[in-house]
């Protein structure tokens, strides 16, 4: 029974080991917890989970193993909150819309746009209330109403599974925010970015190493023996390229958080802005864009290959903006964006792309695939897990 539980935990990605399993068994034998399921839940959580990011996953596994709950893929409503499966929404809408209405939607910005709005609406609603069920698009102003998409009776994002009457502790899932595949806050990003920080001693020996001097002087029976060490440098240098404007506006806040976190972490950090895709010009101050423009070639000349380049952008644009000369939405570009991307990634030994779009949706946008190709698959989602993977990649 319990071995099954441990295996389920490990399958869910919680690194519970034999040591911890034995600790749990001993705890039960010693009667640490009372004989009820709540106490057992508390005890097993303390023994098996060592990272608050795993608490949410633990709650889910616990619920499944000990309550016979369906896995989230079924009709579990939690999945809807967590990932908002677009397929389902699409089918839902397809079923409810006539051909004319679909055409009208296309005219109003296309299906993806609509899905985008629905997704935003969901996010907003989840932010305003905590718990409880929400209803989408009841107002006459919503585009869903206008286009005849009548979702009444469709319950999206019910916080608690409706299969049970009483809500148990693990079903409250209060640690959801700490799961590393969802949360993106300034503090957490800071944590992940710390991975990037690599202290290394290099350069000339300039600092007096007092403990070593004393030790070797003592070893030398009292005659002075000076020891020096090189000064400590933070060797990580980072160039940050931020996508701004246009499709990126939704994500500007996220990138700003990343940016503010990054600023405190590195001694050598430069940032540049671009729109959708880097071309021959970048700028350093979005408000005074014209005055702060620098040539991309200049950037390549100025910063050595040892800088780590991090691009932040949703990479969602028309494919022409990447592959076609003159494809930029803002100006006439002599060379396609892909040439500039190749130049940048070729020059900097380590580079990565952070994408704030949910990873599940990457396959649907053609340009994301293109950028991924250009980055040789070094694209990571803007989540704690993604940032950790990125920093591992960058510091390898």
């Amino acid at each position: 029974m319990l071995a099954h539980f441990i295996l389920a935990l490990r399958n869910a990605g919680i690194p519970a080991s034999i040591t911890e399993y034995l600790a749990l068994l001993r705890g039960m034998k010693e009667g640490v917890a009372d004989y009820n399921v709540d106490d057992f839940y508390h005890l097993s959580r303390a023994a098996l989970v060592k990272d608050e990011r795993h608490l949410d996953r633990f709650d889910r596994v616990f619920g499944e193993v000990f309550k016979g709950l369906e896995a989230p893929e079924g009709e579990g409503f939690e999945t809807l909150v967590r990932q908002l499966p677009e397929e389902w929404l699409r089918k839902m809408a397809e079923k409810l819309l006539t051909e004319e209405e679909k055409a009208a939607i296309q005219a109003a910005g296309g299906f993806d746009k609509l899905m985008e709005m629905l997704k935003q609406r969901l996010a907003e609603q989840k932010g305003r209330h905590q718990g409880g069920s929400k209803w989408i698009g009841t107002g006459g102003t919503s585009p869903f109403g206008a286009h005849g998409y009548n979702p009444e009776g469709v319950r999206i994002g019910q916080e608690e599974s409706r299969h049970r009457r009483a809500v148990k502790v693990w079903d409250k899932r209060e640690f959801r925010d700490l799961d590393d595949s969802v949360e993106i806050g300034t503090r957490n990003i800071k944590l992940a970015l710390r991975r990037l920080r690599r202290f290394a001693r290099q350069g000339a020996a300039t600092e007096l190493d007092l403990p070593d001097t004393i030790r070797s002087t003592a070893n030398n029976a009292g005659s002075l023996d000076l020891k020096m060490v090189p000064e400590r440098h933070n060797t990580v240098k980072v160039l940050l390229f931020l996508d701004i404007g246009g499709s990126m506006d939704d994500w500007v806040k996220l990138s700003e958080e990343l940016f503010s976190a990054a600023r405190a972490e590195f001694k050598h950090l430069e940032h540049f802005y671009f729109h959708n895709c880097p071309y021959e010009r970048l700028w350093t101050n979005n408000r005074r864009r014209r005055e702060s423009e620098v040539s991309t070639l200049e950037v390549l000349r100025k910063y050595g290959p040892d800088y780590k380049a991090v691009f932040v952008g949703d990479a969602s644009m028309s494919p022409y903006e990447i592959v076609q000369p003159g494809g930029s939405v803002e100006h006439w570009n002599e060379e396609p964006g892909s040439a500039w991307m190749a130049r940048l990634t070729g020059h900097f030994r380590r580079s990565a792309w952070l994408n704030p779009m949910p990873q599940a949706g990457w396959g649907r946008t053609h340009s994301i695939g293109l950028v991924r190709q250009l980055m040789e698959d070094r694209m990571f989602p803007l989540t704690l897990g993604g940032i950790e993977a990125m920093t591992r990649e960058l510091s390898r």
Partner: protein
Amino acid sequence: MAGFRSTENYIASRDLEVAVNAAVTLQRPLLVKGEPGTGKTVLAHEVAKALGLPLIEWHIKSTTKAQQGLYEYDAVSRLRDGQLGDERVHDISNYIVRGKLWEAFAAERQHVLLIDEIDKADIEFPNDLLLELDRMQFFVYETKETVVARHRPVVIITSNNEKELPDAFLRRCFFHYIRFPDRETMEQIVQAHFPDIKQELAREALNVFFQIRGVGELKKKPATSELLDWLKLLMIEDLPPEVLRSSDPKVAIPPLHGALLKNEQDVHLFERLAFLSRQRQR
């Protein structure tokens, strides 16, 4: 066995009680994490009080080395004594200075050992303490003796999550994440600390407090310790509860906000919110 329970001064949730008791019974270190100001350090004091054991505190700084918790060899005094021809110089054990861990190991009775803010130290720090915390023993190279704990201390470790702790270390610990208390628990906590507070004042203050925490963009959300400081100030100033009632944080900055908001950007944010809502009313 004398277990750990919520006390008059410290409200512990059931899961925290279970975690503490499990760690005490199985003689493993308990790692406590949580938002700053949710009572991680205080927990060690309360556990010591509940179990009736003395407490040894070891506060970690960025320069702290694991070795310092065991012992330090004072080479400088030995060198000086050697040059002055002091007799003590022949016995090396005169220059071994005991650390907190040794103190706890050598004590006549069981102690509670608090290792506070372990994440402040170098990344290797927890790794260097693996064996010491597991077997509760270590070896002194200078004198060739092994120090074994006479009574395994109850070890409580706190972390603010500034560094990731190594897996091997985590595997040896029990873990508890102190969640931010909900309203009901918070009322109990306020009662525990200020038994003679006016009910109305406490209610209004909690309203304002949770409203402030609800504002999304705060850099540093106020936590329990800030709330308690603020309440103390409110009681000293003897403000009537009505003052708080009007101060929806969206309309005005709450009185004595210095105790709650620790960041000038947060104060600015509130000023801006207040300004905006005044404009809207006009």
